[in-house]
């Protein structure tokens, strides 16, 4: 066993998990509190990346670009909630699925029209493009930044949910929706803010990954399905559940990709192990979700009393 390899794979898993968490956090709140299925949540991930890339081209400051891009995505999220999503809370899930699928088409095409097909790069400084070494152990600097940024936001979100008035309303909403309205809270505004925060978090995730992959059309459409798996496994409306299950799925996916073929080679021929491993590692998270749904239909960490 190569320990260096294992540790760097764990860091990769953690990084993927944190990105998934940023996506799933908004998704789980929107699902848990508003009972709204948003397939187009991944579009905010894409919009965030493009906003950041465009701002970066003008300002050449990563921090500045990220701050303003997050505000931009928050605004887009608020607009989408105000003019489209708000009309749909009373409709059934079928309408949610269809309208947000339509929104994916709209956002992807708009991105193509505005930013062109080539995708946009977010250049990094030499320091961020380089590596950091500790204890004979080398990891890409930017990966470390993603992990630190992801963990910071996760901690911030934890305090927001557990310590603030907004957080109290969010927790109340996730476990008992009618109670919140009974408290005389402006539900419309609460929903708008939650939706926009969720969008901003997704956009932030897109900004973090874009310097690695680049901002491209439809970049969020695939990862959003995985984020849904995270939400289901973690339990609807539970930020804590989303965090743990995102990390879990990040690890399963990364470790599966790196070790599954070696594992399979113990049982089947090299040739078939090499082709079966990628498919099987792609399938594992869905298998996990099916198993969780079969035995714990409410997810691993359902919101409620336990979710402090």
């Amino acid at each position, binding site marked *: 066993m190569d320990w260096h390899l294992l540790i760097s794979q764990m860091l*990769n898993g953690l990084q993927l998990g944190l990105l998934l968490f940023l996506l799933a956090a908004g998704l789980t709140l929107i699902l848990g509190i508003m009972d709204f299925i948003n397939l187009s949540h991944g579009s905010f991930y894409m919009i965030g990346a493009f906003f950041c890339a465009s701002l970066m081209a003008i300002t050449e400051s990563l921090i500045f670009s990220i701050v303003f891009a997050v505000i931009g995505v928050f605004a887009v999220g608020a607009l989408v909630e105000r003019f489209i999503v708000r009309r749909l809370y009373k409709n059934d899930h079928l309408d949610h699925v269809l309208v947000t699928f339509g929104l994916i088409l709209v956002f992807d095409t708009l991105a193509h029209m505005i930013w062109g097909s*080539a995708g946009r790069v977010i*250049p*990094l400084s030499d320091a961020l493009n380089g*590596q950091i070494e500790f204890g004979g152990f080398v990891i890409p600097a930017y990966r470390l930044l993603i992990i630190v940024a992801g963990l910071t936001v996760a901690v911030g979100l934890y305090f927001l949910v557990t310590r603030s008035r907004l957080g109290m309303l969010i927790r109340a909403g996730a476990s008992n929706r009618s109670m919140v309205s009974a408290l005389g809270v402006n539900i419309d505004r609460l929903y708008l803010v939650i939706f926009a925060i969720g969008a901003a978090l997704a956009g932030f995730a897109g900004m973090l990954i874009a310097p690695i*992959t680049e901002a491209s059309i439809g*970049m969020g459409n695939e990862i959003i399905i995985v984020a849904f798996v995270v939400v289901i496994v973690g339990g609807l409306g539970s930020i804590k559940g989303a965090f743990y299950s995102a990390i879990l799925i990040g690890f399963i996916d990364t470790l599966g*990709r790196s070790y599954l073929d070696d594992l399979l080679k113990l049982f089947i021929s090299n040739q078939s192990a090499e082709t079966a491993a990628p*498919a099987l590692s792609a399938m594992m998270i869905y298998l996990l979700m099916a198993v969780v749904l079969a035995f714990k239909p409410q997810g691993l960490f359902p919101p409620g009393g336990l979710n402090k």
Partner: protein
Amino acid sequence: MTKNRQLLAATLVAATLASMPATGFADSVKIGFVTTLTTPASVIGEDMQNAVNLAVEHLGGKMAGKDIEIIFEDDGFKPEIGKQKTDKLVKKDDVDFVAGFIWSHVLLASSKTVLDSGKFLISSNAGPSHLAGAGCHANFFSTSWQNDQTPMAMGEVLNTQGVKSLYVMAPNYAAGKNMVAGVERTFKGEIVGKDLTKWGKDKQLDFSAELAKAKASGADGLFIFYPGSAGGAFIKQYQQAGLRDSLPLYSVFTVDSLSLPKFQAANIEGVLGSSSTMFWAPDLDNAANHKFVSDFKAKHGRYPSFYAAQSYDTIMLINSALQATGGNLEDQDALRAAMEKANYDSVRGRYSYGNNHLPVQNFYLRKVVADADGNWTTSIVSTIYENHQDTYASECAL
């Protein structure tokens, strides 16, 4: 009677549908061009489209006195859509040639429609082994290559550069597997590790896990095939992982004129000096290529990609056939015989056609360099293969 009225309505609707666009005149040559114009892969399709338009411009909009009419169709990066669009070109637009096709699976799905209808099919990129070998067809031509050839050339490069152990990465789909098979066929050293990553709609763009494995394997070199945007993502992560000195990069169809400007913008210096093989390069020295590259650069502000070069050649090949028949589109045998001669000035220089109608051509080693203006491009280092024919030609019954 309501029923009668409805029947009448039915006939009217059908008649309107039928009379819709029956465009085109007898004195024009119609070419259907299927490529990818939506999704991130459309960056390739647009490059091909630009090259086709440049070729038409260079021909003055006419082939042997006939007006050139090009109908571009978007396959949306999906074989099923590609096939639908090909059906439309064949059955509705009644084109004379169907060309284009970036992706092997789109070409395979669409080929039956074109060939069954007795029209000519010209691949401007995809080179699946089936159509080169057992499935070859009298009316199928290619202006590109067979998938295996370029990585086979790379295998030879690795041998001469003394690479003893190699780590291999490619996407898990037919072309990816062909590339891996190609390099394995000629590379004499040991393959110490291999990763086939998830491809298709849900393709993998984060290669951190695989790069960590490659680094741990201690290989002398890293062979990759990542076309399109995945290539950009890969190279960036290769740079960020700091592998430039310890694990030299050898790529096919990954570092091209579409990705290099972006690497330069993103400061990815790790790609400079990296090796790739190809049948063509922007600095290949011949008159047709000079004209093509300089006019393309003047129009679009950057170098054309190899996709563009092949698409430009596609139009020139069709032109050569029409010139030979004096613009006669009816005489299929004469057209075919003319195309088999490849009697035109290709941007890759003169080449010939094998029995399977795939080019028998040179392959070169290229390195990434900065040109006189400081723009990053690929430049030819040496010739690896001269007049190389693909290995599947022997399986072709033609």
